[in-house]
Structure formats: structure tokens, C-alpha cells
């Protein structure tokens, strides 16, 4: 049921048999951060998530924004952009099935980057407001999320350390940690 091939077929199936809710649910179950959550909480999150479409070149958020959302890329890809006064640099391209921005579920934070649709982009969006509503109902969630984030930061850093040891490190590898 939850095999990864299932996800790939989602796009075709959604329109006919599966309701958007069911496909949201199976997507969220794949997100590592949520995988340990109780089914009831996951259902609520799937139910409260919405889909947004961005045309190529449109910004999802800009530096300094507190958009208060996390995003799952359903289709297309997005560029993470470092904006400075005179120029913008593309740090990384995020493709399909990436989950971005989970930190902003926990606290209002200004974005350190901009995210721009590199192709036409369909996102599954969860707002902080909805997320905190679910957290209030399942207080044990917050601890699980914090643990998952701690693990994630540790992994990322570990990854960077490994890269550094192998002399592969470029400064941009460190960028984007706030996008976990």
C-alpha cells in the first residue's frame, strides 16, 4: 500500500479514484518527519493540507518573509535562491517529493532564502496555524517532532562532516539547513 511506486502513480490515480485527502495521507506518511506520528494526527494533517500551483518563475516565498508554511513538491521543481542586494544565486534545486520548511511549523521565522518555481510547480502546503491546531490536540506530537528535527540536524551535519573529510565540501553544502 505504501510502497514508493504507489506514490509515483498518485498523479494518475488522484483524479479518478482517490480523493485528494487519501493521496495527501499517503504522501505525508512518506515524509520522514511525520512517519512516527499516530494515524489520527496524520489524517488531520492530510485533511488540513492544501494544494497550490505556481507558474514557472513565480516566488513561493522571498527572503525575510514569514510565510508560515511547509511545502511538499508534488510536481515540478523549485530553486532555493540566496538573495543579496545586487545579485541572486541559486543554491540548490529541489525536485519532486521533497519536503521543505518544517522548521517554520514550529515558530515564526524569517526566511533566509527565496524559493522560486523553476518549472510549473504543484505544492502540498501545510500552514503553521493548522499544524499547531493539530499539535494542540495531540500534545505528544511536539516532542516527537522536536526529536525528529534533532535527528535531522544531526544527520545533515554528519553528512557535511563526511563531505568535509573527503575534501568535497563547498560552502553551499552548508546552506539550506533551515529548509529541513
Amino acid at each position, binding site marked *: 500500500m505504501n510502497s514508493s511506486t504507489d506514490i509515483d502513480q498518485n498523479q494518475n490515480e488522484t*483524479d*479518478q*479514484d*482517490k*480523493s*485528494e*485527502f487519501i493521496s*495527501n495521507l499517503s504522501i505525508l506518511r512518506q515524509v520522514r518527519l511525520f512517519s512516527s506520528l499516530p494515524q*489520527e494526527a496524520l*489524517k*488531520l494533517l492530510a*485533511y*488540513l493540507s*492544501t494544494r*497550490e500551483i505556481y507558474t514557472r518563475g513565480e516566488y513561493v516565498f*522571498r*527572503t*525575510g*518573509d*514569514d510565510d508560515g508554511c511547509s511545502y511538499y513538491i508534488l510536481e515540478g521543481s523549485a530553486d532555493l535562491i540566496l538573495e543579496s542586494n545586487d545579485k541572486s544565486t541559486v543554491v540548490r534545486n529541489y525536485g519532486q517529493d521533497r519536503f521543505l520548511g518544517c522548521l517554520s511549523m514550529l515558530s*515564526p521565522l524569517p526566511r533566509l532564502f527565496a524559493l522560486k518555481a523553476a518549472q510549473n510547480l504543484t505544492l502540498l*502546503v501545510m500552514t503553521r*496555524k493548522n499544524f499547531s*491546531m493539530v499539535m494542540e*490536540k495531540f500534545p505528544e506530537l511536539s516532542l516527537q517532532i522536536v526529536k525528529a528535527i534533532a535527528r535531522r540536524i544531526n544527520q545533515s551535519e554528519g553528512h557535511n562532516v563526511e563531505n568535509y573529510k573527503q575534501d568535497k565540501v563547498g560552502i553551499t553544502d552548508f546552506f539550506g539547513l533551515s529548509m529541513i
Partner: protein
Amino acid sequence: MDRQRQSVVKRTLGSWVFDGNTLLQVVLVVVILFTVVARIIPLEMQKRIVNEAIYLKQLKLLAIYCTLYFLSVMTASLLKFAINIIQALISERATAAMRIALFKHILTMPLGFFRNTQPGVVVNSLVNELTLPGNFIGMAVAIPLTNILTLVAFAAYLFHLNPLLGAISFTIYPLMVIVIPYIQARVNRENRERIGVSRQLSSSVVEAVSGLQEVQANGGFALANRNFARLANALKTIRVRWNLFKSGVKVVNNLVTNLGPVIIFVLGGYLTIRGELELGALVAFLSAQEKLYDPWKELVEFFQVFQDGSVAYYKTMGLYDVPIEHLMLPRDREPLKLLPTVETENLTLETVEGIKLIEEVTLTLNPGEHLALVGFSGSGKSTLALCLAQLLSYTSGRASIGGEEIRDLTRADMVASLGLVSQSPFIFNGTIRENLEYAHAALHGQGGFLAEKFDPTLDDLIYVLQQSGIFVDVLKFGLTTVIDKNDKALAATIIQVRKNFQADFGEEINEWVEFYDEELYLDHSSVGDNIIFGTSRTEEFNTDNLVKNPFFMTFIDDADLLRPLLTLAIKLAEQTVDILKSIPDEALFFAQSPIRPDEFDIYTTLVQKIKGQNLHQLTKPQQSSLLTLALRFSPGRHKTATMPEFLKDLILEGRHMFREKILAKGKDAISFFGLQDYIYSQTILNNILFGRTKSQSPRIQEKINQSIVHLLVAEDLLERIIEIGMEFQVGTNGNRLSGGQQQKLAIARAFLKSAPILIMDEATSALDNHSQRRIQNVITGKLKGKTTLIAVVHRLDYLNNYDKIAFMKSGKIIEMGTYDELIEKRGSLYELINRH
């Protein structure tokens, strides 16, 4: 009069007894006197009925005495009723008076108090704790007076009949009122123990059940059983004792009540036979003996209420007995018009624990100067700002506004000179407009501090809405309002805007808006709207009444829609109930659900009942409930079910059939959607679009609003829509506004007040870059040189707009000067900026 000046928390409980209730208490005393008389008469009548009427066989006397007996009983009951009413009135009046006085006091208490006191405690004090003292006030005169007088009157009467028997009658009950409370206390103690052990028993069951895997895996049956048996036995013992004492109370009660007559019969009978007591007097004794019980009981209970009430009262009042730091209103003068200079000298705030939150702060700010306070969190920036706003009290040093020491100014003086936007501003339940005018009204409104009364003009309001950047939000609220059916003029103008909109933006906005099109199924409208494709003019075609409407139901059958819609509804109900079952009473979660919060239980039951049933087995009411749900379903909004394509086609066909049938019927029940007609059931926005937006996302909404604004301006409608938008209800704590909207509203509130000094404590922390820049531009462009500003700054971007920057660290100002000076100095600010 002195009482008015005396703080409510210093008053004694007794002082409330006659406060404002003197007249009622006097009336009460009079009523009580009559009651006591009315209670004695039956005894005398009983005596006379036996002695005179029956003994002498006088029917006429019997009739007279019985009538008098009856009348006095009736009178006594009515008077008792009157006493109860007056008593309740006094008690409620006293409770309300105490609540009002205490609330007034609490509002003026130092903020520090509330850091250690939960709002729940204050709620409890004001709502629950004062009820018991209030009860006491109601009883304070009535109960002792009634019962003591009754007892005295009975005693006098009985002694007059026979002193010996009278004395004995009076000793029975006092014994009882001493013994019974003692046993009752034991009952209460056992009860407490019973509850305690019951809890332990429950938790041992919980533990065993949730750890059952461990119990079974390790074979820990014996241990779990032993543990449970121990508690179950302990509970048994306590329950036996508890029952024992409980029945003890009943037995003693019964015994004494029944023992009384025995004694009266023994002694009274003996005296009567000896001829020393009349038979009638014996009857009176028997009857009186029974009636003596209530007064004693009531007196004991009164004593209990007095004890509990005064404990609750002094505890509650003691909690709030904190000195008030600042007077509310200046006596006999207008609030001062202070020159907006701010000066401090060695200003220090030290906590009781000896921690210096601010230390030796010295600064001077001339009228119109702008100061930025910078530093890490915990450096004392906000504390300093709040001290200057008189909201925190400094412990040493000086701080003054216009040369007047802040500590000595009254609240009114401060309020008149100072505006404050705090870090997390509070938005009150009400409309945007009420919140906007809040600070202004406190000065210039009815009962405001200043003599000069005036309301802000619409232009003023719009001006500050624009400056703070909340204008677009208010516009959005205005556009999503449903206007009144009678506002034909507004509707006509909006139709005009619609036409221009279609001409100018129809193509461009197509992607985001689903236009009403007779030939298309509308994913973002409900099934019901898709069928009717219009607004009902009569009750029977309102969305919620459709399933009760025979015409509509016949149509549904004819159009072959019933079965597919029921199938759809069952799916929808099952999914929604399954998702929301863990949070059934949380309205916020229901925004995306076709089931409303109050209907949730109904659908939960329905889903359980129809599980495994076929469509033809559904009862009529079940069909109606399901159909209601199906008619509300809109696939664009409700994501828990999908709309099969064939059903869309079927509905589309049905739409035309429905229109034909309605027109054939010659009824004017529906006004069908048409480009020329205003849709009164829908929002202004939907009317302008002549359709619905496909997404609720703010990004899309803004795009659409931007295209609409120009058209509104062209039709001179913008101000009107803003006025409508300002009537938006923000909800409790402003929870229908986002954090950013709340901050912008608070800033607009302060701008509208336009006090000579403004304190902004990280006032823009929840705003995006663009909004922050806009507000900074207003501050620099419009307020510099006019309003003295102290801003606690959380971002360093706009620092060079300030006249002075004070860099704080551990409560001290470690460097202060202009931006250029500090950068040149290459000190802490320079370091902070370049670290970024």
C-alpha cells in the same frame, strides 16, 4: 463615603451586609416579624380546636379556628417565600457589587502581579469564589433573625403553657445539632479516603491494561493480582465504614425526631391525666416539638456558611491586596499636557532576588527625537521601554516625561501623553473598527480621560489603515462581506464594477477564478448551487430547506440524481467522521468539512447505523441527512471525496431540467445567476468576479484584489468597502486575524491616537520585509520631529533612520550615539552589524 475611598480588598465581609441594601434589609426584618407571629398562631389554634371546639363539640368554633389555622399557615408560607426572594436579591446584589468593585481594582493592579497569577485564578475569584460570601450576605440578617425569633417565640409560648415540659422540649434538639455534625464530619473524612483509594484502584487498572503485553510476556499475573486485590480490599473496608457512618447520621436523625414525641407523651400524658395540662396544650406541644427542628438546623447551617463564606472572602480579597502604584485619575484636574521630552538618570530596576534588569541607565530624548534600543534578547531593552511607559516600576534613579517624575504621574497623565505598541499586542473581541478606535476612545470617547470629545473621521481611519499597511487586509474583509438585501444602490454599483472587471481582467484572471457559466460544472460551488444555479427568493428553496421541499425532491428523483448523490454522501460522511472523530468539538477543524460542528454527532450515529446497508435500505430521515450533505459538497473545497465525472454531467443536465420545471411552474422562487443581477446570498467579491476564487491562498487573493482595487476607485466604491471591512469581527483575542494583521492593527491603533510620545516594543516583528519598510517610512517621514519615539528594534536594517541608538547589554547602555558615530567607533553595534 469613606467606604468609597477605601480599597475593596481592605473591606470586611460584614461591611457589605447593609451596603446599598439597607432598605431591603429593613423590609426583610419587617417581613420576618410577621412570619414569626404567623408561625405561632397555628399552635394556639391547635390548642383551642382540641380544648374548645372538639371538647365542647362546637362546630362553629371549629370552623372559625380551622379557618384561622389555615390562613396563618398560608400567610406563613407566602411570607417565607417573600423572605427567600428578598434574601436572594440581597445576596445577588452583594455578589455583583463585590465582583464589580474587585474587577475595577484588579484592572489597576501592577502588571508584575499577573506574571505570577494565571488568568484562570482571576476568573475563579471573580466568578466562583465570591458566590459563597454573597450567599452569606443574603443570609446575614434573615436567617439568624428569623430562627432566633421563632425559637424565642416558641419558647415563650411553650413555657407559658407548661414550664417543665417546655424546658424538656428545648433540650432535645440542641443535643442533636451537636452530635450530628460530628458524625457528618466522619462521613466526609471517609468519603475523601474513598475517593483517594478509588483513584489508586483506577490507576492500577490502567497500568495493568496498558502494560498487559509486559504482564503476559513475563507472567507477572500474581504481582498484578496482588496489587489489585490489596487496593480492592482497602476500598471495601473504607466503603463499609463510610456506609456505617452515613446510616449513623440517618439513624440518629430518625431517633431524635421520633424520641421527641415519646418524651412528650410520657411526661405530657402523665401531666394531662393528673389534670395539670390541658389536652389542647398537649397537642400544641406535640406539634411545636416537631417544628423546633428546622430553626435549630438552619442556625447551624448558617454558622457553616458564615465560616466558609468568610474564609473564601478574606482569601480572595487577600490575594489582590497589593498596593496600587499609580492613581487612576488626577484629582480635580485635567490630565497634564506634558512636553514630550524623556529623561532618565541612573535608572535601575532590581528584582526582589537582586537581579538588575536595568542598571544605571541615563539618557535624554528631546521632543520629536527618535531613539532605537538595540541589544540581544534579555539585555533589558523591553524592560526599559516598559519602565518609561509606567507599566513596570523602577526601583531607583529618576525617569521623567516633560520634567515630571514618571512614578508620580497618574495613569491618566501617562495615557494622555503616550502611545504604546507592544510585542504581542492584544486585540479585543469586536470589530476592526472598535479595536482601531480603542486607544482614541479612551481619551476622547464617552467617559474618556480628556474633556475634548470627538470621533475620528473616516478619512482619519483610512489614513492610519494605509500607513500601517492593514488597508489591504481590511479591503479583503470588506470584499468577503455579504451585503444587506435592501442595499440596492450598492448592489447596482457593484454590478457596474463586475462589468468593468469582466472587460479588463476576464482573460487574465481566468486561471484563479471559476466564473459562473451556465454550461459548466462549477467545482468550487456546492452541488446544490450547481443544480439551482441561482439564489432562492423564498424560504423553501434555501439550501438548508431543499431536502424538505417536495418539488425539489421530486425533481431529484426525476433527474436520476438520488442514488448517485446518496452514494457520494455516504463516502463523504464516512471519511469526514473518521478524520474528525478525535476532535469533534473544535469548530476550526470544520472549515473544510461539509459537516458542521453541531451536526457531527448526528452524522457519527448515522455512519454507524448504515454501515453495510444498501441504498434501498436507508430510511427517509437518513436519506434526507445524507442528501443535505451531498448538496453542500463542493469538490474544489472538500477534499475527502471525489466527484465522479458522470455525476457532474448528470447534474449539469439536471440544472437545465430544474430551470425548465421552475419556469413551467410559473413561480418566481429562484433568481437565476445572470450577468445583470446581483447575487444577494454571496459576497461582494463573488459578485464582482461573477464566480468564485479557486484557491484560498493569500497570494491568489492578493492578485485578484489588486486588479479589483482600481475598478473600485473608478466607481468611487473603495471607501465604502473599507468601511464595510472595518465591521469585520476579529474573534476572541483577535484569533481571526493573523499575527501580522494583529500587529498592523495595533500600530494603526497607536497612529490614530497620535500621542506626543510613542513607544514601539518590537512592534513589527511578525511583519514581512515589505510591511516593515512601509511602516519605517511612515515613522521616519511623518513622525520625525513631531513625535518622540522610543523603539525596541529587533532588526538592524533601518537603524540609520534613528537620531540616537542605544546599545544595551545586561541591563546597561554600553554605547549610545548616532548611527554614524557608533559605526565609526567600531564598538559593539559595529560588531553586531558586521557579524550578520
